[in-house]
C-alpha cells in the first residue's frame, strides 16, 4: 500500500524537492503551504507530516499545538533551517517525532521517513 506523506512548507521548491526524493521511494506526496492549509487537508490516509517551522499564517510549532488540541494523531517530523535547542524541545513536548535541519541529505530524509511513517 502506498504511504502518503504531507509536506508542509511555504517554499514550493522545497515541496518539489521532497517529492522528488520520496516519490521514487514509493511515497505519495500531498502538499500544503502552511499549517492552516495542512490542517484543512489532513486525513487518516496521511502516514507522516514533514513540516517547516517558519511559515506565514500558521507556523510549524503552532501547527503541532493545533494537532494536539484537536486530538489528531499523526507522526510529524519538523524540517527546518532552525536548530535552537529550545525550539527542538518545544516540538518534542508538542508531540513531534523528530527534527531535520535544512538543507537535508536525501538518504537521511528517506531513512527518517521510513522509520517514522505509520
Amino acid at each position: 500500500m502506498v504511504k502518503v506523506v504531507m509536506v508542509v512548507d511555504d517554499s514550493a521548491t522545497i515541496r518539489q524537492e521532497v517529492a522528488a526524493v520520496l516519490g521514487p521511494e514509493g511515497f505519495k506526496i500531498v502538499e500544503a503551504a502552511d499549517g492552516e492549509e495542512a490542517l484543512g487537508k489532513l486525513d487518516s490516509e496521511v502516514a507522516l507530516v514533514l513540516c517547516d517551522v517558519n511559515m506565514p499564517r500558521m507556523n510549524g510549532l503552532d501547527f503541532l499545538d493545533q494537532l494536539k488540541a484537536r486530538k489528531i494523531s499523526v507522526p510529524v517530523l519538523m524540517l527546518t533551517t532552525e536548530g535552537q535547542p529550545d525550539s527542538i524541545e518545544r516540538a518534542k513536548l508538542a508531540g513531534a517525532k523528530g527534527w531535520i535541519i535544512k538543507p537535508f541529505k536525501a538518504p537521511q530524509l528517506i531513512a527518517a521517513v521510513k522509520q517514522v511513517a505509520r
Partner: protein
Amino acid sequence: MNEFVSEVLERFGPEAVCEVFAAYGVSLTRLPSAEGRATIIPGLGRDGGSPDATVAGFIGFSAPVLRGALLMASTFEVVARARPPAVRNKKLSSASSSDWILARDWAGELVNQVLGRIKNRMRSHGLLLEVSAPAALSGQALAFAKPKSPKTRPVLFDAHPDKVWFWLDALWSSEVEATGGSDEERKAGDVILF
C-alpha cells in the same frame, strides 16, 4: 558586546551566505568591499553591468534588544543554479513566467536559510531571534536607495561568472549581552529522532 553584533554583521552573515550556496553546489568568492556601490545592486551580470533578470530575497528579524533585516540578490541564472539537486533536472527559463515564480520562491528560501544559520549561531551565544517570513522580488535591473544606516555592510560575492549581493543591517541596544559560544549549535543535515 557590540563587537559580537559587529562580528555577526561582518563575519557570520557572509559566512552563512557562502555555506548555504555551497550546500546547493554553488561556490562563492567574497569580493572586495561593495560599500561604495550600494546605491544599486551593482554589477551582478557577468559583464559587470546590470543584468536583465534580477531576483532578491528579503527577511527581517528581531530580539528584545536587537532588530534588523537582510537582503540578498543575484541573477536569475545563479538562483536557478542554486536550486536543490533533486529538482535541478528541470531547468528554469527566464522566458517562463511560472519559472520566475519558482525563482522568487527559491530566493526567499535561500535568504531564509541564511538567516536560519545566523539565528542558530546567535542562539549559541544566548541571543534568541524571532524571524519574519521571507519575501522576494524580481525585475530588470533592480535598484535600491542607499541604506542610511552607518552600520550597513553590503557584501559582493562572485558566483562565477555572475554575482551575489548581500546586505545585512541591524540596530541593537547597549544592553545586548551575549554569552560565550556553546556546543549546542546544530548543523545542516542533522536528523534528530525523539
